[in-house]
């Protein structure tokens, strides 16, 4: 099993994500340079956080045109696992691999802080190791994390269980106050219809070691590892 971490110019969580996968979780991991011509046979592609191409236009809007992206799109179409974290989520939205868009946080400021997430759907490759309704304490760090989607898209997401995580308070209630960036329906992460592409604003790689104050983010990576080893077992 092999993980690939995409590096766009301006990515800045690429090394953090790589470290968690290779050094904390002992997984074979490789960087995928934005100008690469292939995906190096990885089983899961991760689009990390950062400011791809400076994000001077809409966040993620330029990364969509990166030379590697057609390969990622094809990989996703064939069912390959793609995880977009923060800026990676924004890129997935810009590419249309996930529905909706991001607008500025409701207080119009960058927000870096711990939040609580409720796991809404455990039947995905990215959450299969979590218990339903488990509360995860994971940090966010973004300016544009206020999730927006059309009423029709929202209805679809809700109906099909595509909402992976919601912002909640410590007790698991999806309150207005817990919804720090103002996302519709407190949405913190969503998955595509086929269940193989996940985008999330919080940073699980920042919450995967006790020394940093939380290990709740590991369950996301561990779910992928467990899913991939099971499907490999079957294959």
């Amino acid at each position: 099993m092999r993980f690939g971490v995409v590096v766009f110019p301006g990515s800045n969580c690429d090394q953090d994500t790589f470290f968690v996968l290779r050094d904390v979780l002992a997984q074979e991991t490789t960087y995928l340079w934005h100008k690469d011509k292939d995906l190096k046979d990885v089983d899961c592609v991760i689009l990390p956080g950062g400011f791809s191409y400076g994000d001077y236009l809409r966040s993620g809007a330029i990364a969509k045109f990166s030379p590697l992206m057609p390969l990622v799109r094809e990989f996703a179409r064939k069912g390959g696992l793609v995880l977009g974290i923060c800026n990676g989520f924004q890129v997935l939205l810009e590419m249309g691999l996930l529905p909706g868009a991001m607008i500025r946080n409701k207080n119009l400021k960058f927000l870096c802080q711990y939040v609580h997430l409720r796991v809404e759907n455990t039947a995905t490759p990215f959450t299969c190791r979590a218990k339903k309704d488990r509360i995860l304490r994971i940090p966010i760090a973004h300016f544009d994390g206020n999730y927006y989607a059309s009423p029709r898209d929202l209805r679809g997401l809700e109906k099909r269980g595509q909402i992976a995580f919601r912002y909640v308070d410590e007790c698991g209630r999806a309150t207005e106050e817990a919804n720090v960036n103002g996302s519709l329906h407190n949405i913190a992460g969503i998955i595509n219809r086929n269940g193989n592409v996940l985008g999330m604003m919080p940073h699980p790689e920042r919450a995967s070691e006790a020394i940093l104050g939380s290990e709740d983010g590991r369950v996301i990576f561990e779910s992928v590892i467990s899913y991939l080893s099971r499907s490999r077992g079957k294959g």
Partner: protein
Amino acid sequence: MIDRRILADHNLTVEEYDLIVKLIGREPNLTELGIFSLMWSEHCSYKSSRIYLRNFPTEGEFVIQGPGENAGIIDIGGDLAAVFKIESHNHPSYIEPFQGAATGVGGILRDIFTMGARPIALLDSLRFGPLEDPKNRSIMEGVVAGISSYGNSIGVPTIGGEVYFHDSYSRNPLVNVFCLGLAEKKKIFYARAEGIGSPVLYVGSKTGRDGIHGATMASAEFGSETEKKRPNVQVGDPFKEKLLLEACLEVMDRGLITGIQDMGAAGLTCSTSEMAAKSGTGMTIDLDLVPQREEGMSPYEIMLSESQERMLIVCRKENLEDVRQVFAKWDLDAVPIGEVTASGRLEVRFKGERVVDIPVDAIVNLCPAYRRPSKKPPAMRKRCKPDLPPSPSDSGDTLLALLASPTIADKTWVFRQYDHMVQTNTALLPGADAAVLRIKGKKIGLAVTLDGNSLYASLDPRSGGKIAVAEACRNLACVGARPVGLTNCLNFGNPEKPEVMWQFKEVIKGMTEACRAFSVPVTGGNVSFYNDTEGLSIYPTPVVGLVGILEDVGSAIPSGWKKNGDLVVLLGKNSAELGGSEYLRSVYNLEPGPPPNLDLELEQRVHRTCREAIARGLIHSAHDPSEGGLAVCLAESSMLSPSLLGCEIDLEDEIRTDALLFGEGQSRIIVSLEENKLPVLLRLARRNGIKAKTIGRVAGRSLIIRKRGREIVRLPVKRMSEVWRGAIPRAFSIP
């Protein structure tokens, strides 16, 4: 052709001009004059300060590089070195807060990665005028957003710092930016131009007309026409700098270059002449080869531009192609613009003509140093005024008022705009006494803090300097770290005023004394003079940046209570000192002296006790009383405990109540620990020759303080927390 008006425009005196003529043996042309004006500016030459800065202790067992390079370097064990530096960006941040602060961050980052270190942390010391004034709010909003935009984008966490408010900064905010980097000892780089005939490469952004005369602007007072200076402020591009950072670290890691210098203040002028001067070589460059983003730029403009995100590199000829390839990979130009010569001169060509030809030594090393007149101001408010107001009748209300004072209030409004977790090394988040970083794959950790109390320094500059160093060391002790290297940013008014010069000399004396006592070497720093607007100087503001080491990063402890039932112990002892307190300033608008007394010997023994207690796992939390004194310290330990634990405190001291609660006596640390660990802690304290006294217990959900049995404070932690956390956001919601 050079007349007095031109000299005045260039901030040069007639005497300085005569010296230039003597040094180069003829009248300089305008471009050459521009070069001298920048390199001989206060900002670049330290002409008013350098004879005093020599007094700092700069040597130490672990010092790899002291003052004189882009940053100081300390050996932190194994194959690693810590590279760090602090710089001011005060003037630009007043003129254009967002870009001024942003480019301050960009500049200090380049100072660090120029040396081969990857920047791993930023901290800022910020000073603003009172938030009631909308102008101050807009400056603060812009500065914080600027720091946030640059640091967050480039992916270097801003993990701490300080924010103070005082009227003396109303028309002159201070923005001091500190950066820490990590380098492999074998891969440290310096600003050298060695190897005659070696190519000189220009890398990074193209040159424009922005920032011309930035350094000279920072070397003069502001009048009422600051708006007009807005074009002097550069615009930052953190994305470009991120590419530059990765590309530079890659060529350095592969050993492809021999010398590198960033183009910060004084741009191409400074980098070319300094690299040559430091190597005893010369340099010839052709300005037609310099990448430019505007048309028709004159040699004067190209040499003086302070466009951001640019570097100058010297490499061996045979590595030129490899260097260019690395930069191409990161979509950056690396353009040979000249070569290293043996002439000892800076020779600049433009459209086939030689437009500059001057000895580099004259530009870099021969600027006169001044021993400016200094005089103790007559109205030194040294003594404590006898007519102190009576102790307030309700200490609880006074405590709440202090918690709402912006200098003391919670700074989450600021810190959550900064990405303080990227790079995943932040082991103690902002809000702790010092920020703590782990180093991946190592047991040791690094702790960093910025400190400086300008009210103390205004009352007694020498004590202010001493306390700044002592408090920084104390903050490190509170997380369990021992100090290994110090950098400083000395912010003062116009040095041509004898009173300002006196303050400066005194502050340096105080800092030097404290640095010697703590055996902490000064590895560099920055002096920012001319912090005056319309004739008024800021309070003297020495800011200390201190780096320390924890032998085991896992042992670091926070400042908030951890466990119900723990004992609360005071290391050191309370004293009756109200001079220079935030209490008298914010509640009564009084600023009497003297600042608190400091016994450096006792201070060290308190630190040692705290560090040893942490290393042996005896204590759960440690926090020192600073602004707001003991009461604010206890309140903070409660408000910072994850479950808002309160405490019950019994004080026996016979000290007037307000001095006991809010006085800022030094050399004290409040720790909490399990009862069964107490005997060991007391033994430790005795061995170190300090007092340690149990003053209460972590309990309940309120802060309760009794003085000799009589209750003087009872406040629910939740209520205090609302006031403390709400103060700054409330100030910004005023329409």
